[in-house]
């Protein structure tokens, strides 16, 4: 086992354990902090895939922005959570059955997927250039359209989020 493989396995266990704790923690705050650890582990996986840009963006966007948003909303809604007994709902048995069936189905599909053997065992050195990615995103011949559509989606979502979260006058009394 190479050092890289060992590192991958350790990271994978950290990710899966903290994701599991995210689901099972009774306190929402603990759940949010385990969630941050899982996201950091995913950033390490991106680094192992030699996609350094995405490792940094993962830390900036998820750990920096989304985790802060989630922790803020946990703190803003704290009163409502202290009365709840169990973190899981009444239909958890059915949910567990669905997840187990999905696991079995996915495992069977994975086992019988012949194309997996066609992938190279030895990787060629990565060709990675941030400048090229940036130019491709604004090149009309390449990805300018998806890029612009994505930015309009982000703008609309943020305007909508501000509108929804903004308190209306009749609520303030």
């Amino acid at each position, binding site marked *: 086992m190479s050092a890289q493989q060992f590192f991958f396995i350790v990271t994978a266990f950290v990710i899966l354990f903290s994701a599991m704790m995210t689901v099972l923690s009774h306190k929402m705050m603990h759940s949010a902090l385990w969630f941050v650890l899982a996201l950091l582990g995913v950033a390490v996986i991106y680094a192992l895939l030699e996609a350094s840009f995405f490792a940094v963006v993962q830390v900036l966007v998820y750990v920096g922005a989304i985790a802060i948003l989630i922790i803020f*909303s946990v703190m803003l809604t704290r009163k409502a959570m202290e009365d709840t007994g169990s973190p899981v709902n009444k239909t958890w048995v059915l949910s567990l059955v669905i997840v187990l069936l999905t696991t079995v189905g996915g495992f069977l599909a994975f086992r019988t997927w012949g194309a997996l053997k066609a992938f190279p065992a030895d990787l060629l050195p990565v060709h990675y250039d941030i400048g090229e990615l940036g130019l491709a995103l604004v090149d009309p011949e390449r990805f300018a359209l998806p890029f612009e559509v994505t930015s309009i989606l982000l703008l609309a979502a943020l305007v909508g989020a501000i509108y929804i979260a903004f308190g209306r006058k009749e609520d303030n009394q």
Partner: protein
Amino acid sequence: MIPLSWYLILSGLLFLIGLLAVLIRRNAIGILMGVELILNAANINLLAFWRYLYGYNGDLRGQVFVIVIFVVAAAEAAVGLAMIISAYRRKNTIVANDIDLLKG
């Protein structure tokens, strides 16, 4: 060298844990965290396939997909949390079963 299948198994398991979070959490913020885990699992898959199929020749399609998913995840978190805060103001609860403002 790490085989491709390891990445696929990791992202599959992460997806299943996210699915479990979406299905069993009572707290709406917990459901949102499950959705984020699912999106992360998809991103691991996309980047792994990009690395193993196109990582050597400068094909950027996989990376552009990942960027789009990052933006969609950020937008989804912002809108979802705004809706949770708004529902909390009106109903004073964030248990998903009790938020029934749209029921006639």
